């Protein structure tokens, strides 16, 4: 039983296209996150949603728009893709109010923009 899943695992697309990445968690958590891992393996927070409400929005171009249809899902839509968007995108989830708010990560989506 996969705890945090993402689709697709690989995404190759042309510059200027619009694409979406989907994330689902079956842990019953109330908070979900998107992180970006660059070519140097540095992992940086992009967004966080708690109970479908945006609570963290780091300095990310507004071409990136997260959407949370319910507590178990957090999708990332990217408009007008640029070469610099190539990276691995990780979804994570946690339960904020349990005291041990460990974040559990998905397997990642490797985005390549040509």
């Amino acid at each position, binding site marked *: 039983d996969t705890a945090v899943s993402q689709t697709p695992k690989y995404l190759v697309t042309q510059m200027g296209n619009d694409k979406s990445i989907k994330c689902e968690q079956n842990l019953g958590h109330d908070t979900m996150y998107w992180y970006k891992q660059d070519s140097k393996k*540095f992992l940086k927070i992009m967004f966080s949603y708690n109970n479908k409400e945006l609570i963290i929005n*780091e300095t990310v171009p507004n071409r990136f728009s997260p959407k949370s249809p319910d507590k178990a899902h957090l999708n990332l839509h990217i408009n007008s893709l640029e070469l610099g968007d190539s990276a691995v995108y990780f979804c*994570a989830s946690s339960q904020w109010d349990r005291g*041990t708010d*460990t974040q559990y*990560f998905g397997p990642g989506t490797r985005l390549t923009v040509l």
Partner: protein
Amino acid sequence: EDQVTQSPEALRLQEGESSSLNCSYTVSGLRGLFWYRQDPGKGPEFLFTLYSAGEEKEKERLKATLTKKESFLHITAPKPEDSATYLCAVQEGGNEKLTFGTGTRLTIIP
């Protein structure tokens, strides 16, 4: 702004050769310090959370310790399957986000 520095960047050990990885941090009010393991092509896998200076946690050949300025991940008698990138992250009080270091790539040679 929270800062996390991990050293060394890469470490090669012979099987059975014990060593330590370092994570130095600067944060206003630490809520928790997290250690993750990341294998190539996979997502970070949770190992430990430490909440206060002096705390220690162990799991198999790994032991994590915490002071007010740094954390160490001690690996005792490592095996080749311990090869991975080890990531350290801090969480500031009242803020859900994790601030990660750049990781230590550990290679255990049989």
